[in-house]
């Protein structure tokens, strides 16, 4: 197929072609960036928390009477909760993935040394690991004599005395790259804490990639503040019933407290990501809208050109061009315009990415989104131009003989 008439024809519509190329370029740049943000958000949505997500239910209890001993209170409550049918285990805890209750400590490797990482402290009563379904990949669970109170009324001084900790694999690798973390000593507070176990995964209560999503330390420290979260593990189908019974049982046990936020872990997770889901649907809508508008523009312009060139198409048909040739001609024309747009679009996409990185906490545009965007636009262009191209191909040669 000779391209010279094609180029000549495009040359006659320089400004129109330029506008079309610019539109494709801008669409390509925006869609590539939107797709990258989208991909990142969707990946976050699917992050495994490390806990037995569909077996956990929880509720928060806030005590009103400050005179009673919180440790005794928690033990009584937990004993009652464990007796509910369907409850496999229960624990009083403070932090949980997605519950935003983040108590972070700088971790040093020597007394008063430099911090190597900042990690969230997960504290809970005995049985926390089993209840949450955390899987040890090395080491052991805490021993009964390792537990001590957090000390929330004494400036959380438990952190200075606690003897043992279980850390996530991610934190272990950050602190002791390439070494066996078991038995190593860290300093989250004033005193030395020995690493006795390693869990595979545990997400922090709030996600923040720059800070390490899985930098977590589990301590054998008993919550002793006025507010505590009771977590129960149960079969998925029993969750709602167990929650209701737990609420009733605890209120009956001691009415002088506020019971709130009874929910399953799945609800907690869903709430945490609600904004992200809004954003994801918006980004999707924006990308689709952009592609649709551009497709409509391409189709509109192409059908307009076909209408305008009916006579010249007829002449070409009359002098021997087949329908296929005409079809190819319109398609090739579109391919060239879109290709031009993509070429500029790739550069624009990176420029836009740099701009976005300066203003928002976004990461560099992964390279593979560019060919993805390019292919999408090529396909879109061909799809949009198919109708007008067919119409062009069906122009009969006899049109050439008519005037006008």
């Amino acid at each position: 197929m000779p391209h010279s008439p094609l180029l000549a024809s495009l040359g006659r519509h320089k400004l129109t072609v330029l506008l079309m190329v610019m539109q494709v370029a801008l669409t390509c740049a925006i869609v590539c960036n939107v797709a990258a943000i989208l991909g990142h958000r969707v990946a976050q949505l699917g992050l495994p928390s490390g806990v037995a997500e569909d077996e956990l239910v929880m509720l928060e209890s806030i005590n009103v009477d400050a005179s009673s001993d919180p440790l005794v209170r928690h033990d009584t409550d937990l004993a009652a909760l464990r007796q509910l049918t369907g409850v496999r285990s229960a624990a009083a805890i403070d932090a949980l993935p997605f519950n935003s209750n983040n108590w972070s400590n700088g971790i040093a490797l020597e007394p008063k040394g430099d911090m190597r990482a900042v990690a969230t402290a997960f504290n809970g009563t005995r049985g926390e690991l089993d209840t949450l379904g955390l899987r040890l990949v090395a080491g052991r669970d805490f021993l009964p004599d390792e537990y001590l109170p957090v000390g929330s009324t004494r400036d959380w001084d438990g952190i200075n005395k606690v003897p043992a900790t279980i850390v996530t694999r991610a934190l272990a690798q950050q602190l002791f790259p390439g070494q066996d973390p078991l038995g190593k000593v860290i300093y989250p507070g004033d005193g030395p804490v020995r690493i006795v176990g390693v869990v595979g995964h545990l997400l922090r209560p709030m996600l923040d990639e720059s800070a390490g999503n899985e930098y977590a330390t589990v301590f054998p420290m008993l919550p002793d503040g006025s507010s505590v979260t009771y977590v129960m593990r149960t079969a998925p189908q029993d969750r709602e019933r167990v929650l209701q019974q737990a609420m009733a049982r605890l209120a009956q046990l001691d009415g002088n407290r506020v019971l709130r936020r009874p929910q399953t872990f799945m609800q907690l997770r869903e709430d945490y990501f609600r904004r992200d889901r809004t954003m994801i649907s918006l980004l999707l809508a924006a990308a689709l809208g952009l592609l649709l508008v551009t497709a409509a523009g391409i189709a509109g312009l192409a059908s307009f050109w076909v209408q305008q060139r009916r006579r010249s198409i007829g002449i070409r048909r009359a002098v021997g061009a087949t329908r296929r040739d005409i079809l190819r001609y319109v398609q090739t024309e579109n391919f060239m315009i879109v290709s031009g747009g993509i070429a500029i679009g790739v550069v624009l996409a990176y420029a836009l990415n740099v701009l976005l990185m300066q203003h928002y906490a976004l990461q560099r545009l992964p390279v593979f989104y560019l060919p993805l965007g390019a292919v999408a636009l090529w396909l879109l262009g061909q799809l949009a131009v198919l109708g007008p191209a067919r119409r062009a191909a069906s122009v009969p040669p006899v049109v050439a003989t008519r005037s006008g």
Partner: protein
Amino acid sequence: MLGYYATIAASSFRRNKALAALMVLVIGLGIGASMTMITVFHVLASDPLPGRSGKLFVPVIDPRPLDRGQSASAPQQDGSFTWPDAMNLLRAARAGRQAAMAGGAVPLRPTQGGGLPFYETGRYTTADFFAMFDTPFLSGSGWTAQDDAQRAHVVVLGRELSRKLFGETNAVGRTVRLKDADFRVVGVLDTWEPQPQFYAQMDSRIFGRSDQFFLPLQTAMDLKLDFAGRLSCWGDSGDGRTSDQCSWLQFWVQLDNAAKVDAYRAFLTAYWREQQAHGRLPRPVDVQLYGLMDWLAHQHAIPDDLRLQLSLSVGFLLVCMLNVMGLLLATFLRRSGEISVRRALGARRRDIFLQLGVESSVIGFAGGLLGVLVAMLGLWSVRQRPDGYAQLAHMDAGMLLATFTLALAAGALAGLLPAWRACRIAPALQLKTQ
């Protein structure tokens, strides 16, 4: 003449119904999407305390230790104060008014009947809070500096909580039990819900939240009531509320004129130097004093996701305009014959330009109408979001006008280049080729 041009425009669109509809649709979508986000921004960025915000300032001193160059050292600086610094500035009282504050949450019991305790959020603050922010009192008043010093058990209730506890009767003088201590109600506020809740620690719930009780900060410390919000600590002197290595308090001052602002800044600088002499505040002296609106901007009160959505919608409008520009150019050039005849009959370039300009404005106008509908729909969808700002997303008369202006401007702008190109068509040449 303009009327005649409008008639020509209408007949030209009738010839290309599908294309005209496409252009109107595209402009409408672009305008609708961007106006939705611009309206949300307009609402969220408005002054939470009109008339007073110019006099309110946030002093910022950085209490953190020197950076030791490690990857994870000092916590982020969010402008919060440590207890000693806040108390020092409060005692110095060098501004017209000043108050320290922190978020709090307490369980409380309904006064009548045996209902279950419930949880309420409020603020622990100091005496000047009410006068400085000019809070409207339904009855009673705030407390005095003496109450602060004596750790008095006094409380100011929000209207909603007062009604919940005491019904329609005047709550002033009555007693409420917060956690396990009795407080005397000294005042009840009328509905006061500045949006955003500018004086609070900045977080994702800064919009749509309001405080239902206010009580003296020192009293709250004394009773060890529960605090809400971030407590950032560093160093190794424990995680105490009173430690000078934990920042968590907000501090606001009222400064009535520029001279007072300068004087206060000088005072803060002197304070920082003096503390350095005592071995505190090791970072280089760099006092900041933000006005209320600057503070909100500096703290990114409007969520980043919304900014991103705004940029995205503007980008979308841009693509839509390019699209319409291309389509208009194609329609105009198709009528080269008609235009060159008009030129040959004596129409000046200016006339052609005006005629085509009217055509694109008609598209812009129709697109604007559609855009308002799309924006209404968009704002409705924003109101369905679970975020605190969602309920604020309404269009006012000003934004409605802005939508139309933007649509007309977008239409005219999109038509500018095509019209310019078309009016350069030479009369003779086109006639010859016919």
